[in-house]
């Protein structure tokens, strides 16, 4: 089994999102009709089904909606990371996104904890938005 970490297979919906992350911004779709943000990026708004969408740079602030501390890795590629915190972040703007909490002390993570985006470069094409406790 490959021990290289899986990278996103970037598609037309997600290109602007990953491109922004590479440049250190968190850009997610904003609907020109209902005014709501959504995540993950789609071609049709999941709230009102409009296709009048544009990417919008958001605050990068939010809170931990829920999380798990992985004591067993998601495959050999993540073995060196254990224990690590995978968290569902609720952004100030509303949408939730899956990410990692960058912390030396997983026990400090709790539901409701305030977090802020931090960008972690994987290679020249991909930079991941992780979060850190604030």
């Amino acid at each position, binding site marked *: 089994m490959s021990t290289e970490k899986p990278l996103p297979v970037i598609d037309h919906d997600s290109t602007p999102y990953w491109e922004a992350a590479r440049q250190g911004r968190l850009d997610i779709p904003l609907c020109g009709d209902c005014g709501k943000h959504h995540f993950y990026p789609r071609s049709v708004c999941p709230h009102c089904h409009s296709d009048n969408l544009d990417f919008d740079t958001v605050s990068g602030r939010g809170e931990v909606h*829920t999380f798990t*501390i992985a004591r067993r890795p998601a495959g050999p590629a993540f073995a060196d990371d254990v224990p690590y915190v995978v968290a569902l972040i609720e952004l100030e703007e509303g949408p939730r996104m899956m990410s990692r909490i960058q912390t030396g002390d997983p026990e400090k993570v709790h539901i409701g904890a305030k977090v802020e985006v931090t960008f972690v470069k994987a290679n020249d094409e991909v930079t991941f938005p992780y979060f850190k406790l604030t």
Partner: protein
Amino acid sequence: MKNGREPVVVGVADAPLEDGKFVTKASVLGHAALVAKAAVEEAGLKLSDVDGLLTAGMWGVPGPGQLATVTLGEYLGIMPIFVDGTNIGGSAFEAHVAHAAMALREGYCEVALIVYSSDQKSLRSRNLGGRPSVLSMQHETPFGMPTPVGGYAMAAQRHMHEYGTTSENLAEIAVATRKWAQLNPEATRRDPLSIDDVLSSTMISEPLHLLDCCLVTDGAGAIVMTTAERAKDLNTRPVAVKGYGEAHTHWAIGEMPDLARLLPAQKAGERAMKMAGVSHSDIDLVEIYDSFTITVLLSLEALGFCKIGEGGDFVSGQRTAPGGAFPMNTSGGGLSALHPGMFGMFLLIEAVRQLRDEAGERQVKGAETALVHGTGGTLSSGATVILQKD
């Protein structure tokens, strides 16, 4: 108004396992064919009588391929005129019962066969590397999300936060289910289990321990359905399909509308019970998908057996164990009997055996009405079936 086309289950069969692996030597399709044959023969029918074929499997390429009913129909040497390859995860077979019931009522088929087979344990083919990082999963897999346990762990964490549910509450489910397995000679895990054993088992994905998780086994099962009219001529005790419902809400756990509330179960359950004209007090026995202990807790609440948030109290004091007030997962469930990837098939088989008074030592005395509820994906889909002794 009865017209003789009311759907009934007339045959069930499953494959024998030893240490969670198939005993008989056959391919994954071979096991499907063997249980299919056993189920139709139990009903007093022949495979050539089957004109409706329903199946689902995690059968990719390489393997039997993605056109599941087509591949299986060919192997069985039958040419069905009603097919359904609906795959919504482990709850697919409860949905198949619903779809077969509608086809039978409509006169669209006469004998429907629902089949599942997996040799994941023998093949060691279970994918531990996570879901391919494409489409919506490109926003989950690269973060090292343990699948599927991580999603369930996140729901458990949220339920604990909102309602004060504890790991002890969840362990009650694993322990009660093991007690049923101890009464089932076919169950994979029959050694004694205590709450402390569950709590001290390896932490996998907090807050879920190893013994909060289902087994990984092989397994094959089949169900045969026909109409009440046709069943009159058959050498079997039909079990009536009185109600059904299905729903799904999301795929990735991050898209689950409310992580502490299992909306698919609520929607499917309400619909199934209304159709059957039964209330909670009419249900003698429940078979609820137990991929993880938290799955059961969320299902019980969403199906309305207790209020949202009160699942922990509901399962406390071994209420769901043999001799308890609420007989549940009487085969030993996915936690202790078997879990071949998509367990929903085996919930149905167990309920049918209970309603036919064939469950031996684990028989729930006087069981007349059973609720079966499957969950699939990452708490994504739910499908409910109400079965009744005819």
